[in-house]
């Protein structure tokens, strides 16, 4: 049974004369990983920003679990279950990896009025943080200051933080960026483990990884959806091949 968790219709965003995203219709379903491909400048990050709420849509609509969220702020979208990770690592550099995740998990139970209780003592949030770190493979590095982590570990922390917020939708912007082969393998395994319980949108350049995990692939060019469908369809599409001509990618 297809249950669309996140759906857009006619979603567009213009910057002056430039249409960064034009008439995008995309659907995320629970238990499915939807990959977003396209050459640089295709509008992939713009689309993620529109979905996460960091960019306001110029026209079109976004609905989440049946409700229209087009006008919702970014923080509200996170609270209702739309989580997002960043292409450029966006952590709290001065805090430990654990505190990074603990803070992320705290967003679910803010306990603002408990001003006399040390937050470290609140087990449910700490447990959620530990679970997120474990899922991302960082349990051994919890006490490390985030800025001192290796690049790959920081990418793992990036994912751990969004996992700690227990979202229903995961918008992942190039989680594999800058990772080595072994780390990529670990991340792909993580993605496969996460897929059944979430609706995932994955923006990535690593084709092997994408074709290994994706259930649906949408290809964007110049802000518009070129083609959308199962991996086999995309792999054999002439239009897609042409769009990628010269990128040296073996689709």
């Amino acid at each position, binding site marked *: 049974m297809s249950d669309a968790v996140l759906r857009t219709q006619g979603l567009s965003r213009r910057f002056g004369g430039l249409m960064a995203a034009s008439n995008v219709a995309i659907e995320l379903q629970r238990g499915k990983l939807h990959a977003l491909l396209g050459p640089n400048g295709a509008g992939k990050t713009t689309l993620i920003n529109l979905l*996460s709420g*960091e960019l306001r849509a110029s026209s079109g609509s976004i609905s989440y679990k049946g409700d229209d969220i087009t006008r919702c*702020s*970014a*923080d*509200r979208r*996170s*609270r209702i279950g739309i989580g*997002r990770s*960043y292409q450029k690592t*966006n*952590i*709290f*550099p*001065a*805090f*430990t990896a*654990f*505190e990074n995740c*603990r*803070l*992320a998990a*705290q*967003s*679910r139970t*803010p*306990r*603002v009025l*408990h*001003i*006399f*209780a*040390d*937050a*470290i003592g*609140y087990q449910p*949030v700490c447990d959620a943080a530990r679970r997120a770190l474990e899922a991302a493979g960082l349990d051994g590095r919890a*006490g490390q*200051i985030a800025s001192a982590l290796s690049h790959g570990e920081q990418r793992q922390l990036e994912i751990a*933080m969004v996992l700690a*917020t227990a979202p229903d939708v995961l918008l992942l912007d190039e989680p594999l960026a800058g990772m080595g082969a072994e780390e990529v393998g670990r991340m792909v395994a993580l993605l496969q483990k996460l897929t059944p319980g979430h609706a995932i949108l994955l923006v990535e350049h690593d084709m092997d990884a994408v074709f290994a995990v994706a259930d649906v692939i949408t290809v964007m060019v110049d802000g518009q959806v070129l083609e959308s469908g199962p991996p086999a369809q995309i792999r054999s599409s002439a239009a897609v091949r042409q769009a990628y001509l010269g990128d040296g990618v073996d689709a």
Partner: protein
Amino acid sequence: MSRKRISFAVALALLALFPFAGATFYTELVTKVMILAIFAMSLDLLVGYTGLVSFGHAAFFGIGAYTLGLVAPKYDAANLWLTLPAAMLAAGLAALVVGIFVVRAKGIYFIMVTLAFAQMFYFVFHDTKFGGGSDGISMNFKPVASIGGFTPFDLASATHLYYFVFAAMLLVFVFLRVLLRSAFGRALQGIRSNEHRMRSLGFPVYLYKLASFTLAGALAGLAGYLSAMQFGFVNPEIISWHESGNVLLMLILGGLGSLYGGVIGAFAFVALQELYQSVTTHWQLLLGATIILLVMFLPGGLASIGGLFKRTLVGDADDE
């Protein structure tokens, strides 16, 4: 015991015993410094821990002070236990209202807007008859600390006042320390570290900033109240932007981000001011030059010299 703890304990002991050693003049001077320390700590919550640089904090100090001036009866003493909370409430309320306007502003814009609002308050008190105009208000009596006939201490005595202020300063310090470890306090520090990500994680950042601004304002109001109590008069100059600039200076003197910084900065600032004033009437030149040199060559403040009081980071390995 760590070096930090020992020096802290020693400093506390020195402060506690101080009135027995010095003359009344010095007791009153240190009282003034401790009041400024409260003021500085309140701003540190905003600047050092939430990342909001306000150049208008003196406005809330002033509102706390003026509350006492306005509420104190002409021919009788005010009651401490009624007027002090009233002052904090008034300052906090003013901070809430101003905050609603300014908290959405970012960076440099925020600095300018807070300065502008503080000036507005200055003009209200300076130009209208509401607060006695440019002359201000004189209070004939110090507030009385009685509850139901029982008066535990006499604020007209310099020594009693000293210990009252000392206790207030300690209370504020402990309160802020505890607050910063709470979920709310940690969220504030998260906002300072990476506001964008905090929003993305689902925190309603605007509300947190507003709360921080309001609380900082209320605490500044406490300092203002104590100051009015000590000096017995209020005038618009306490809201001048020089005062807002001086309290920021105290933070950079003491070093941001550790609550001690506010206290150290207050002592350092008053010491500098007294020193320069004894040297020349053009002491502001020396102060200005000191500020410039400080920012150019020692931006971490005095605290960065000793390495004694490190920036306390939440989640740090030796976070105690």
